[in-house]
């Protein structure tokens, strides 16, 4: 062998060196793969993202369409939309004991009764934000309704509908700046009805034990909720 390079490349030793190098670099590779670039803890990240979407203490995310009855619709893919209760609505009613929804395959119509909340022994209807055929219901939320209170726009989704004419429906709903203004108005309306300053009620940022409506007026809370959900008895 003429040179050191010949010696290294033409003997078995190089294979052992490659194997050892692989084992050593694999350890480093493993550490890089299992320890991702450290993001903020997920709750903090979520709060940071949500902060930009808060209006007077209520979450109003972008790319979500709001019905004046406080139901929301979000386009998933194609002609599929997911539906749910908005942050104002869930904070208004407080802890939800149970939900009654139509079965998969049933149709919902925009502005008509879609589902019923059972809160503290009272049944409160809500209106559907869109037309469509129900293709899925969130079984987790039916089993654990508190998910709506914890994450109304995420894990708290109620159902998925198919609507091939969704654009016509979505035109009648509120989103973006319009939605933010509408939530401000709803907040103002609530304060006008109850005479309370919502800022002091929502000051600590946590979930209310009994919901805003019951906290502000324990006798007329159902009437207050139904007037916001547009399902007041005539």
């Amino acid at each position: 062998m003429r040179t050191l390079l010949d010696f290294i490349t033409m003997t078995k030793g190089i294979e052992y060196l490659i194997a050892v190098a692989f084992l050593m670099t694999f350890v480093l590779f493993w550490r890089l793969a299992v320890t991702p670039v450290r993001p903020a803890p997920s709750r903090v990240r979520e709060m940071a993202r949500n902060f930009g979407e808060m209006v007077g203490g209520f979450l109003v995310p972008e790319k979500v369409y709001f019905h004046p009855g406080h139901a929301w619709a979000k386009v998933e893919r194609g002609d599929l939309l997911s539906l749910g209760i908005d942050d104002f609505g869930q904070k208004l009613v407080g802890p939800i004991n149970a939900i009654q929804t139509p079965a998969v395959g049933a149709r919902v119509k925009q502005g008509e009764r879609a589902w019923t909340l059972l809160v503290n022994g009272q049944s409160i209807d809500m209106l559907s934000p869109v037309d469509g055929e129900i293709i899925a219901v969130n079984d987790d939320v039916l089993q654990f309704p508190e998910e709506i209170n914890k994450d109304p726009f995420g894990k708290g989704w109620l159902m998925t509908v198919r609507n091939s004419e969704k654009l016509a429906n979505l035109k009648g709903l509120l989103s973006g700046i319009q939605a933010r203004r509408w939530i401000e108005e709803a907040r103002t309306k609530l304060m006008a009805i109850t005479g309370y300053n919502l800022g002091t009620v929502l000051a600590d940022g946590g979930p209310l034990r009994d919901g805003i409506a019951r906290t502000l007026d324990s006798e007329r809370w159902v009437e207050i909720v139904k007037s916001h959900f547009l399902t007041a008895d005539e």
Partner: protein
Amino acid sequence: MKGEILEGVRPQNPIELWINEKIFMGMTLSEYGKKLFTPFHIVSAILIIIGVPLIILRYVYGLGAVTHASHDQPFGLFLGWGLFTGVPLSATGFLMATAVYLFGLKEYKPLVRPAILTGFVGYAFAVIYLLIDLGRPWRLPYPMFYSFGPGSVLFLVAWHVALYLSVQFLEFSPAICEWLETKKLRAWVLRITIGATIFGVILSTLHQSALGALFLLAPGKLHPLWYTPYIPVLFFVSAIFAGLSMVIVESTLVYRFLMDKVDPKNYESIDQLTLGLGKAASFALFTYFCLKVLGVAHGHSWHLLSTSWGTWFLLEIFGFVLLPCFFFLAGVRHQNVSLVRFTAFLTVIGIVFNRLTVSLWASSWRFPEVEIFHGKELTIVLTVITIEILVYRWVVNRMPVHREDPKFLGDGH
């Protein structure tokens, strides 16, 4: 609209009602026929109309009518694509079944059935490609019953494909039972899932590496940069990241084009599952890269890296192995699902590149001209790919593959 009877189009008997519901997805024949007129189906029909006569031509006039196959270059696109590329890309089934049922990674359960279907269709069509290439399809059962030929690696491949297809059929049969609403049969097949999975892993380990072992039979035939005694191990390791990447590719395409067949509950988890698969694929790619370097060292082939074949080899291991490895790593570290998905497509292209190189071009390196495949051969392959996609879609549209059947919810699926 399921089971709804339309005015003037009344099913005459239970069989017709069953066909309307199960085969025509709740539509009548005329409604179903109208729905078939889509650009995709029209293009598919054209390909099939052109391709099927070419397949008949092959059987009537022999391989020479549709390929450039010869004694010097026996492997063509039917084997290069259908067997050597199709089989690693069909490793999805054993990988996901192993992850969920043997390693206990239950969060990947939504991906098991789709992966098993992908694998089953892939292996079934590998048999189709073999039948087209080998000819004399009536002799298909010969290695099983008449003339074993245990001295040949192909004996192992034949038995394995037959057994593994059976295993995959058993693993997928709960979905078929749910579609046919046969509860007792479904309960029985669910009981043998673990056994079928273990058997499937053993079979896959052997036949994935056996495809590489084929090249050990003629050491001088394959170019020294690709030939190594480790080639069976290389084929097995590449099957791992090929299968994982194929699961990502398949889920990406289904969530884009067949979204209404997917359980909405899976929308949230698919991104995290994709990142997990990408992480596993990056480990396999890294290991494969080192094994390739080891193969070059073992064969003392460093000097060949400066040749034109060497450039091809370096493009393969840096562009289609190391680069995807780091892309996967970057995607996982930065939780970038789009990057992981892109890299999965890149990896699949890399597998195609490697397997076609090994089976077709690098096996002909001694000849003055490397044969590119015949146009008719390519047309037949495109036709079979089209039929494969149509079969996959047919099954997904009807059977509970990406969703749970409501009649069997929480019942051991």
